[in-house]
């Protein structure tokens, strides 16, 4: 349920009814309703579903999660098969 994606608030139209802002999804920009996050600021990240910002993303929590993952199983460095290696050599930064 619920394809919702993170985006950065780049501008807010305070006169719009309902409250609307322009969200940047990594080079793709689309208007979203900000009515449910009335105190959101330009530069913050929000999670957007069907044109509605539903929740602000918390940078500190994201960092803490990644840090935790990084500390797991520190002994095991090896991952991926030959295909993975080949792919990494082959692909530039454009693939994701």
């Amino acid at each position: 349920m619920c394809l919702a994606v993170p985006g950065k608030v780049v501008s807010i139209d305070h006169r719009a009814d309902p409250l609307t802002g322009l969200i940047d999804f990594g080079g793709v920009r689309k208007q979203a309703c900000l009515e449910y996050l009335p105190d959101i600021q330009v530069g913050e990240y929000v999670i957007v579903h069907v044109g509605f910002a539903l929740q602000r993303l918390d940078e500190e929590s994201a960092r803490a999660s990644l840090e935790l993952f990084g500390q797991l199983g520190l002994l095991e460095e090896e991952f991926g098969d030959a295909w993975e290696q080949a792919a990494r050599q082959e692909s530039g930064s454009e693939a994701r």
Partner: protein
Amino acid sequence: MADLATESPRTAVDPANWTCPAPLRDQPVVVMGHGGGGALSAELVQQVFAPAYGNPTLAALTDSAVLHLGGARLAFSTDSYVVRPLFFPGGSVGDLAVNGTVNDLAMSGARPAYLSTAFILEEGVELAVVERVARAVGAAAEAAGVTVATGDTKVVESGHGDGVYVTTAGVGLVPDGVDIRPQRARPGDVVLVSGPIGLHGVAVMSVREGLEFGVEIASDTAPLADLVAAMLAVTPDLHVLRDPTRGGLGASLNEIARASGTGVRLVERAIPVPDEVANACGFLGLDPLYVANEGRLVAFVPPEHAEAVLAAMRAHQQGAGAARVGECVADHPGMVVVATGLGGTRVLDLPLGEQLPRIC
């Protein structure tokens, strides 16, 4: 183009005796998906067109038919262009009409020579719009090095068309020693793409009514015959070429896998997907591998020539972003499997019809 060539004999339905699971009676009217370049398009061909006028030439499943005529081998192809809107970032219906047919010819290894154009105009369309499209056709033809040799115009009543439809057909000569068709894919072949994928589809979607979004990318529409000539200069033994238009890379690779009875294994991380394409697909819920391209090709090349062909592609303007994305395998014949970035696999199936933005 691929319209008449989307299924292999292996899975073809005998029209006199066909059974489920995918009967056309599911949809007794034409739905948009029949034009989407996926399974529905293939069924339309199998169940309506092939029984009506099928023949060995039509059954060859190539982007363009290769005909033996007066001692020469002539590539012949036709396609209709019904894009909305008519003008989009990076091009117009006029560019597509020329480049699409030029590319279908090039996918047989042919040097495109002559095109025809047929315009279907809707009553009430501004002449300035028609003029703009016509000029785009002229400029694209010149850029591709082809001559528009004949044409036709019809007008339909207001409300019976969508502004401007353009149909082009084209012919070109296939050089001696060149035999490029989907059936020639062999296990061991290296799969190359000529550059970043998904740009055309995303550029058009970004200006489509009801879906508009801001993105600074343009359609990749471009003629590929010159690039193909550069590849053939390395070796005439290219096995398969395809321009992954409607249905994207996913549809083209499935068609090749089915036609040749081989499997295709792709490496997801090696597939060049621009960030904007990935992110636009992300928020619409689409898969970039099914998004249309209009200036890209996918090639199946014998392994011993792969490096040299790739180098030749990268040295060419239309192939600067070329990459090795996978290989043809004997396993899972008729299927395309993707090695994911995490090290798992997924099946890349033939899409049913056009992709739809999803919420789930």
